[in-house]
């Protein structure tokens, strides 16, 4: 018992395990306590107490007189009565009374834990704000509630740590991929960045590492803006997401790039002054894309269109 509560003291301090720490602080006694209460009158005999304890497998009982808490009687008190051969005597003679250590229903569990640690007691009657008995709290109740809460925290952690390969594990095929398609309109600057933002969200949602999602989003954004700025009739963006590789294809039907090599040079731009005014046309789009991708292919023909393929490997370190 002692060592268990040393752990709780640790949890109560600043520092690590902040989520658990938060839970213990936020959890109220009322959520943890046992509410199915057995009580006994101070005038009942210790023999009656013995029966109550035996029948319900309990080790401590609050003593109520006219609805008020006047004491608490435990299995240790029963042993004293047995030793002295006084099972016929009233509970009043053996119970702990006077300054009872109690818990308040609305106080944080952490406070109750401190009180358990500071005293040797095994249980505390729980009172509401009107000083009425509403439950009983044992160390076991706290442990149980904490284990439940930890279980919740861990399942949450597991959910957020899902990797794409876990997402895909549930789907059987020879080669599974998730395909997202977006139509991008020419000159639609108002929606510029929508497709890349949605791809990023989707990647994060299926558990891709944040750094990878960011790289994909940046490259896709540049490709998306290129479709908006340069194409005659817009184009499509297709993200093909596989467990170990993500491929994003930006396609359009013209006008096509006359000199791809030149277009890939830093600072080369064909953007009009109006477009530069909006902050585009730095001539860095394809350079940025290249930096973010593991492989990049551009195929283009004037009068036919352009196909830009960007491939991102899911890094092995993040792909255990």
């Amino acid at each position, binding site marked *: 018992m002692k060592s268990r509560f040393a752990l709780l003291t640790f949890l109560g301090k600043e520092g690590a395990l902040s989520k658990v720490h938060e839970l213990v602080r936020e959890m109220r006694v009322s959520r943890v306590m046992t509410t199915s209460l057995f009580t006994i009158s101070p005038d009942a005999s210790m023999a009656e107490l013995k029966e109550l304890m035996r029948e319900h497998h309990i080790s401590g009982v609050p003593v109520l007189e006219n609805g008020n808490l006047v004491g608490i009687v435990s299995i240790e008190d029963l042993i004293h009565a047995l030793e002295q051969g006084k099972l016929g005597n009233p509970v009043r003679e053996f119970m702990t009374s006077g300054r009872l250590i109690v818990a308040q229903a609305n106080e944080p569990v952490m406070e109750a834990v401190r009180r358990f640690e500071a005293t040797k007691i095994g249980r505390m009657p729980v009172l509401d704000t009107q000083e009425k008995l509403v439950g009983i709290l044992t160390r076991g109740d706290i442990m149980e509630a904490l284990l439940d809460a930890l279980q919740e925290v861990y399942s949450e952690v597991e959910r957020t740590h899902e990797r794409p390969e876990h997402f895909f594990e549930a789907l059987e095929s020879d080669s599974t991929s998730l395909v997202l398609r977006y139509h991008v309109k020419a000159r639609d600057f108002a929606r510029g*960045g929508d497709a890349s933002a949605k791809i990023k969200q989707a990647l994060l949602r299926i558990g891709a590492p944040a750094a990878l999602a960011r790289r994909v989003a940046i490259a896709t954004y540049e490709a998306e803006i290129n479709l908006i700025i340069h194409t005659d009739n817009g184009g499509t963006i297709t993200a093909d997401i596989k467990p170990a590789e993500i491929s994003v294809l930006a396609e359009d039907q013209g006008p096509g790039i006359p000199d791809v090599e030149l277009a890939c040079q830093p600072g080369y731009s064909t953007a009009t002054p109006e477009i530069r005014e909006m*902050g*585009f046309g730095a001539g860095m789009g394809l*350079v940025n894309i290249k*930096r973010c991708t593991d492989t990049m292919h551009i195929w283009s023909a004037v009068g036919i269109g352009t196909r830009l393929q960007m491939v991102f490997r899911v890094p092995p370190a993040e792909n255990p």
Partner: protein
Amino acid sequence: MQIKEIVERLGLTVLVGEDLTGEVTGGYVADLLSCVIAGAKPHDLWVTLQTHMNIVAVAALKEVTAIVVAESAVVPDTTLEKAAQQGVVILSSSLPIYETVKQLVGLGL
């Protein structure tokens, strides 16, 4: 340093942004979006004269903590609306970029 501390100490105007508790750890200055995309880091403060709505997409993409529009440049409602939707903070400074950055450096950024 939190956005709100910078706002208070530099007397900036908050154009959009409800949550000013975001941490700022550095800064980036450019008007060309591709440069920002290449150079800005998450938690930067991005100082610019651009006010077109695409600055919102770029800010969200790069996860910068806030955009500071210098010289009290007028930011169109469309930009403000998009920023509000995406939770991007936009601040306004009455000073030119150079002076604004000097003050930011003075704060220890």
